[in-house]
Structure formats: structure tokens, C-alpha cells
């Protein structure tokens, strides 16, 4: 049989566009996301992240070609949702529902849901079956949602700002649980968030989106190769500046330059090399977005 599965595209978009009136929320993007990746979709407000996710989930019309797990999300949403899960920020669980009812309902309608798994996840929380969503804190709601979603054997998990408004304890455990108890090579996760620093160590791929276009799409390994930060003392700063850094900032009287595609050996002459954080890379890439 097909024991060694070829990495196949989970999401394949060609010239994907979406217009609201005259403004383009997505402006002809091409995108490939492969199996077994954890992809961070990062962009400023209004860049088109949510629109892209909605298109992938079959929640919005779009122009261009898009296939998700080989299905067309526009007219095969029901089929698609058997293999795709999503959490669209907290507080989208209906407020009237009880924990017990939510589990029963998902178990009733979802062919790939495992009640045992879900109960095991819930047992680790303080949620009891008779509790209603409206009586829960934001953190508890997300625990319930996560328990429901992780009990579904899905191929693609889409998270749109999943930890918005949660305190740091919930945020930490959210990603830890996801990584330890859920993720494996057959699964793919796409996540958008503004708290980039919290997910950067779990991502395998990064996509920057800006004004409906893809500003950067690469694996974390490729990014580490391509982008290098150098800490330069003031007397050599001008020389470094002449090499066209894409960003410059000051710290402790030294300048930190961010270079794109300059060989490591060349940069090493200027000072100490560092790996840029995603947020620094993001700021450099998105310069002038709100100007």
C-alpha cells in the first residue's frame, strides 16, 4: 500500500483573490501548504489573513483556484469539514450550550470524533458536564473548544487568533497541548496570531501577508539561512549600513542590522551574528504598512 506517503499539498491556491467592493482583501495570491507543517500566517490588521482562512474553510466566496485536501471549499464544505477543524478566536461557542450537549452534538454529527479522547481532555480541566458556556471564563471556553477539536481526527486544523484575550497560563498550555497531544506528521496546522513570539518556536513555516499579497513565504530553516542579524559597534555602523540592511535598531549603544540574503561569512566580520526573531522580521517586512 502507500506506506510512504509523499508530502502532498494540503492547501493549493493559485491566483486567489477576493474583493469587497473595490478594495482587494486578497490580491491574486499563490500558496502551497504541505502536509505535516505548522504554518504561521502573520500580517497586520486588515492584511487579508482572515479572508484567506475563510476562503480555505469555505466560508467566503473568492476568485481564482483553491483546493483544500483536494476539495473545492466553495461547494464541498460539508465534505471538507469532516477533515478540517477550526477555532475562530474564543467565544464562538454558543453561549446556551452545556458541556454535555456540546460533546453529544459533535459526537452525533462528526464521523471522526472520539468521545473517549474528548472526555480524557475534559478530565484534565475543571469543566463539568452541566456547565453552560455562558457560565465559563474565556479560558474555560477555549479549553472546551480545544477538547472538542483535538478529539477529531482531522487532517487540517485552522486556528484564527485562538488565544486572543487569554491570560498567559492558558496561552502557554494551549500551544503545549496542541503540540504534545495533537500534532503529528499527518496533520497540518495553520495559525494566525498577533502574539508571534509565543508560537515562533513551534512553527515550521512562515507566511507574511500584507495588503492582500504574500510578502514572504518560507520554511523556518530557509528563513534562518536567509535573514541574519548582526550586532555592530558604532565605529563600524556606517560600513554595515552600506550593505543595504533591511532594518536597523539600536540597543545598548550598538546597532543591530537585519540583512536579507547576505552571506554569513561576510557579515561575521562586522560583529556578533544573531538569529532574528519573527517579530523583528515582521516589523522590518511590514515597514510603512500604516503610513
Amino acid at each position, binding site marked *: 500500500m502507500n506506506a510512504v506517503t509523499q508530502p502532498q499539498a494540503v492547501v493549493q491556491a493559485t491566483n486567489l483573490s477576493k474583493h469587497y467592493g473595490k478594495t482587494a482583501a486578497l490580491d491574486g495570491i499563490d500558496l502551497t501548504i504541505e502536509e505535516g507543517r505548522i504554518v504561521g500566517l502573520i500580517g497586520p490588521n486588515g492584511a487579508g489573513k482572515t479572508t484567506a482562512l475563510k476562503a480555505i474553510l469555505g*466560508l467566503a466566496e473568492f476568485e481564482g483556484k483553491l483546493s483544500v485536501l483536494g476539495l473545492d471549499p466553495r461547494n464541498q464544505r*460539508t465534505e471538507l469539514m469532516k477533515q478540517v*477543524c*477550526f477555532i475562530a478566536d474564543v467565544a464562538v461557542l*454558543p453561549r446556551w450550550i452545556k458541556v454535555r450537549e456540546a460533546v453529544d452534538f459533535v459526537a452525533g*454529527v*462528526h464521523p471522526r470524533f472520539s468521545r473517549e479522547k474528548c472526555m480524557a481532555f475534559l478530565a484534565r480541566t475543571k469543566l463539568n458536564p452541566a456547565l453552560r458556556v455562558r457560565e465559563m471564563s474565556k479560558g474555560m471556553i477555549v479549553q472546551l473548544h480545544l477538547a472538542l477539536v483535538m478529539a477529531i481526527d482531522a487532517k487540517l486544523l485552522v486556528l484564527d487568533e485562538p488565544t486572543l484575550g487569554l491570560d498567559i497560563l492558558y496561552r502557554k498550555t494551549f500551544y503545549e497541548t496542541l503540540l504534545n497531544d495533537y500534532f503529528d506528521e499527518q496533520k497540518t496546522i495553520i495559525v494566525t496570531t498577533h502574539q508571534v513570539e509565543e508560537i515562533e518556536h513551534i512553527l515550521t513555516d512562515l507566511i507574511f501577508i500584507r495588503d492582500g499579497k504574500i510578502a514572504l513565504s518560507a520554511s523556518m530553516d530557509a528563513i534562518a539561512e536567509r535573514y541574519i542579524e548582526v550586532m555592530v559597534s558604532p565605529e563600524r555602523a556606517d560600513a554595515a549600513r552600506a550593505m543595504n540592511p533591511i532594518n536597523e535598531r539600536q540597543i545598548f549603544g550598538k546597532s543591530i542590522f537585519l540583512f536579507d540574503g547576505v552571506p554569513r561569512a561576510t557579515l561575521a566580520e562586522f560583529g556578533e551574528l544573531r538569529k532574528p526573531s519573527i517579530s523583528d522580521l515582521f516589523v522590518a517586512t511590514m515597514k510603512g504598512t500604516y503610513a
Partner: protein
Amino acid sequence: MNTFKWLVKREYWEHRGGFMWTPFWVTTAVLILTILGITWTEVAGRRVTSHLSFGIPWDQLSAQISSGDLVQAGQGLDVIYVMFNLMVCVSLFFVLFFYLLGALYDDRKDRSVLFWKSLPVSDTATVLSKVATAAVLAPLIAFAIATVAYVGFLLVVSIWASLHGINPLPVIANSNPFGMFWRLLLTVPVNALWALPALGWLLLCSAFARSKPFLWAVLIPLLAVILNGWVSAMGLPSFSSKFLSNDVAGRMIFSIIPGSWIDKSDVVRVGEMASSGSSLDGARLVNALNPSHVYAVFAQPAMWIGIAAGVVMIAATIWMRRRRIESSV
């Protein structure tokens, strides 16, 4: 089919309060008022209670039972069974009206639609589950509660009769509870089909409105009637205003009232009987619910045109549900 069962269950969970507790409290209130009325009569003497006994023509019934007029008394009991259902139906109208207007709007407003849409459930199944809930589930629950309340009423009558040294069983034997049960049950599918245009229209508003589905649902039919009035006042070709307001606009909103298809003359007579309490023509009322009489409504074009319009509007609702996810609130 399994998915559909869970969808209908979901509706019940969310709207237990409207579907079960509203008819429960309405019938309970009627029962309590009846008991209070009977007690008052017993304590204060005869003929002061017709206002207190709230819809149940107790004076007449007690007089018939006392005088041993068993046939009349039996028919009186049947009428009271129907009345329990009528009261529940009035409350059911309000429950259904607001249920339908919120059915595809509330989850967009609180964004929980994103959760529902993350499950492998088609929009068609979602919309149809709401149609089935409003057309079948809620009326059946209401009917069951009215029936239980009527049994409670029979108990009250029996106790009263025993206290007066009368055997209540011959009276009940002269009524026809099982026949009435089936006759009332058989009106449920007729109600459902007659209500299709209102079900379709209210759900369509619910799926379509970005805010205030209530205004859309009420104002559009109203505006149509008013505009038509102007057109006809200017002497231009127009619909008969009676047709437009009763058969179109009225039907789009009020046909969810159970039994609103009943021949108007029957309704008027039942109303008169209930209000005056003078001549309980039980035979006539029971006859109005005769299945051959009830199902004659299928001979009216209005029934079939309504069904067709309802189906079209439900299809439009499904189409709308696929596209519209945001609300503006």
C-alpha cells in the same frame, strides 16, 4: 438522518424554554385559575364565577353535570379539550414567531455560526432542521402538554363531582377523549403545511437580515399592502387589498397560528361559544375537526400556492445561509 436527529435535538436544547415551559405555564395558569374559580363558586354561592374561570365554561358544565345531562356534559368536556389546545396555540404563535426570526440570525450575531459551520453539517440540513422543529416538534410538544393539562382538568372535575355525590365516570364516558386526541393530532400536519409560507418567510428574513430581522419580516409585507393601496387609489391596476392583506401579507406572518386555515365561520362560532358560554354546540365544534372536514382544506388552491411559495422561500433561505455569515451587530 442521524445528523438530522441531532440537529433537531440541538434546537430543542436551545429553545426548551419556549417550546416546553411556555405551554406548560399557560396551561398551569389556566388550571390554577379554574380551581380557584370552582373553589370560589363553592364558597360564595352560584353564578359569580364566569369571569374568574378564565376561558373554561365551568358554569355551564357544572350545571349539566348536576342536572344529569350527560350527553351535553360529555360534549362540553370535548370542547374544553379543544380550548386547552387553543390557548396553547396562541402562546405557540409567539414562541414560533420569535424562534423563526432568531433561528438563522442569533448565531450570526454572537458569531457561534462559525462553530456550527466548522462541523460537517450542510446548510440544507441546518435550515430543514429548523423548519421541522417549528412545523412538527414544537406543535407536538404543545399538543402533548395541552393533553396532560386536560387530563388534569378531568381529575379536577372528578373530584368536584365526587364531592357533590355525583359519579363522574358516566360524564367522561359520554365525552370522546381518544377520538378528540386523534382529531387534534391529525391537524398537526395540516397546520405544518399551511404554515409553510410563514415558516419560509420568517426564516428567510432571519438568514438575510444584517440586523433587526423583525423589522424586515413585518415591514415588507406591510409596505407591500400600503403601496398597493396607493396604486389602487390612483386608479392603476392593483391587487384587491383584501387579497393582499389577508391571503398574502397575513399568511406570510400569521399562518404559523395552528388552525388558522379553519373555515372562518367555524372559528367565529367557536369564539362565540367560548365568550358567551351560552350554547355550547359541542357537536358542531367536534365536527369541524372531523378529518374529512379538515383535509378538505387541500381542495383549496390557497393551500397549494402557499406550499409552493413556502418551498421557494425555504430554498432561498438555504442559499442565503451558505453566503451570509456576518451580521452588522
